């Protein structure tokens, strides 16, 4: 009898361990975090050494990685579907551009200011719209982005309106590295900011705060029941995510030295969602896979079929939703488990 009870307890304990592991893997997205981080760093270094002619495209990829990473925090981790995330990217871009023109051409302070402005807008709008859920929330993200788009569009004297913001001139980074035509500085600058942004993101995900937002995604009612302030946690995630998106936008403005209204459109928000789903939402490395795959695909496809490439992107999206809901990382994990299952 007692032995039976022990055996039962053992099984329970083992079961608990397993689910805890499973939950941890779901939260962290990948058991081999350090390994994957090393690979990504290696790829960045290799790209730096071997593809100097692609520096501009590569820095764009880094910038969008940061942007999609910020979106992942909302969509993948907190489970908030948004159609207006480009708003914060755009606010960051315009803030950095205007700061460079009117206050100081120094890039790092511009980056900080743009991040803070985007985070502040995120905090304000989030405080209003996070009171709603589901479809209404989705609509409100779109509405807020439209309001911001209209403000930037109509305040033509300040922002250049439909012509875009011109005349951004940047001082050298840290007073030494001047932005050059080859995109050498832009490459290193955006790579470093991406790495710092990623480390921050990882810290957030691993913190009790990060666990709470995942819990809210899984079951908001229970999280409230165990004493987690759901609204405040979501507002925190929204603000952090907006700030990160703003950093990415600022990077784009500083490295391109031009901002156009296209940074803030619904298409841009949709594109970010696509890149996220290509890689896999709610996974640490989704952004790092999805963005390069999407942007390289776009680059190749638009060269071969300048008119029709959008069609193939759309088709891929439909197929992913139909057949591969967890993106490339999901396919990879499935293959990995299949392989391991066969050889175990």
């Amino acid at each position, binding site marked *: 009898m007692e032995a039976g009870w022990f055996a039962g307890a053992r099984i329970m304990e083992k079961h608990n361990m397993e689910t805890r592991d499973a939950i941890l893997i779901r939260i962290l997205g990948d058991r081999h975090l350090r390994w994957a981080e090393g690979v990504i760093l290696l790829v960045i270094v290799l790209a730096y050494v071997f593809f100097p002619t692609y520096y501009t495209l590569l820095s764009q990829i880094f910038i969008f990685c940061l942007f999609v990473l910020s979106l992942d925090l909302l969509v993948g981790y907190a489970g908030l579907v948004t159609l207006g995330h480009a708003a914060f990217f755009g606010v960051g871009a315009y803030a950095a551009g205007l700061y460079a023109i009117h206050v100081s051409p120094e890039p790092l302070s511009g980056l900080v200011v743009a991040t803070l402005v985007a985070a502040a807008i995120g905090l304000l709008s989030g405080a209003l719209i996070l009171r709603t859920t589901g479809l209404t929330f989705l609509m409100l993200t779109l509405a807020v982005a439209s309001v911001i788009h*209209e403000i930037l569009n109509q305040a033509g004297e300040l922002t250049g309106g439909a012509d875009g913001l011109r005349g951004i001139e940047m001082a050298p980074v840290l007073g030494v590295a001047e932005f050059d035509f080859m995109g050498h500085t832009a490459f290193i600058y955006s790579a470093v900011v991406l790495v710092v942004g990623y480390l921050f993101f990882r810290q957030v995900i691993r913190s009790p705060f990060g666990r709470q937002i995942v819990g809210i995604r899984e079951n908001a009612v229970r999280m409230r029941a165990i004493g987690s302030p759901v609204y405040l946690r979501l507002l925190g995630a929204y603000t952090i995510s907006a700030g990160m998106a703003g950093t990415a936008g600022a990077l784009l403005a500083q490295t391109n030295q031009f901002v156009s209204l296209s940074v803030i459109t619904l298409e841009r928000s949709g594109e970010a969602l696509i890149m996220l789903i290509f890689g896999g939402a709610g996974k640490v490395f989704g952004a790092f896979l999805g963005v390069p795959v999407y942007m390289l695909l776009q680059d190749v496809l638009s060269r071969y079929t300048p008119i029709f490439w959008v069609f193939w992107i759309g088709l891929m999206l439909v197929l992913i939703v139909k057949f591969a809901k967890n993106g490339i990382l999901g396919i990879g994990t499935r293959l990995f488990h299949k392989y391991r299952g066969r050889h175990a």
Partner: protein
Amino acid sequence: METLLSSIVSVMFHGIAYGIVLYLISVGLSITMGLMGFVNLAHGVFAMIGGYLALSFMEQIGLNFYLALVASSVLVGLLSIILERLLYRDLYGGDELEQVLLTIGLVFMAMATARFVWGPLPQRAVVPLELMGQWSIFSRDFPVYRVFLIGAGVTLFLILWYVVDRTGYGAKLRAAVDNQSTAQAIGINTNRLFTVTFAIGSGMAALGGGLGSELLAINPAYAMEYLVYFLIVVAVGGMGSVKGPFLAALLLGIADTACKYYIPEFGAFFIFVAMTLLLLWRPAGLLGRG
């Protein structure tokens, strides 16, 4: 004073015409979102394809204006059934992210196809002779086509209202919007109801696209460009309703026209602000419940 009054009358008139077009296109979306819980961002595609097909029927086959509109609307309605059976059905009431991504994918495919087949330039339907010109009432001129547009739209709205409020089909539809599982339990075939309703909504959108090409020019980016407006109509009107979107579409049409006429320097700013405030005040829309 006379000029102000005259401008108010003309803003109202053109705003209502605009609102009617928005209503025809959006009412199907409202039903889809209310009935099936499906965020169909690709709804504008039906209107776009409807517009293009109507134009092609007139130019290539030589159908007359009215026949071309009806034919394109029926064709789009039938085509949408394939889409519904093949792609949409599995995602009803499910994950919003998947719905959003699937339908954005469809918008992309439709945009590329339209640009490939019909070219990048915006197009408008050629209005038949009897609908050209102006009617003057109290020494004010009203374009005949827009009077026709308003008449046709209001007629369709009344038919739709009658069908939903008075017929057996309408009763089933309302039952399914209110409580799907109960409706199913008492023997309503909700699957078929969904398909039929979806096809009617898509057909209406196609009709709106063709009829409204004079106001919203048909172009490859159509489905994306006006999507925000269709969504506003649905969100403000309240999902799953036929009357709510009508009210919302007229309000939006008049407000947007007025903003563009009186305060063009603000663009659509006030429209979006108004929508935001309204949704914060009434998350379920003007006539929505909950």
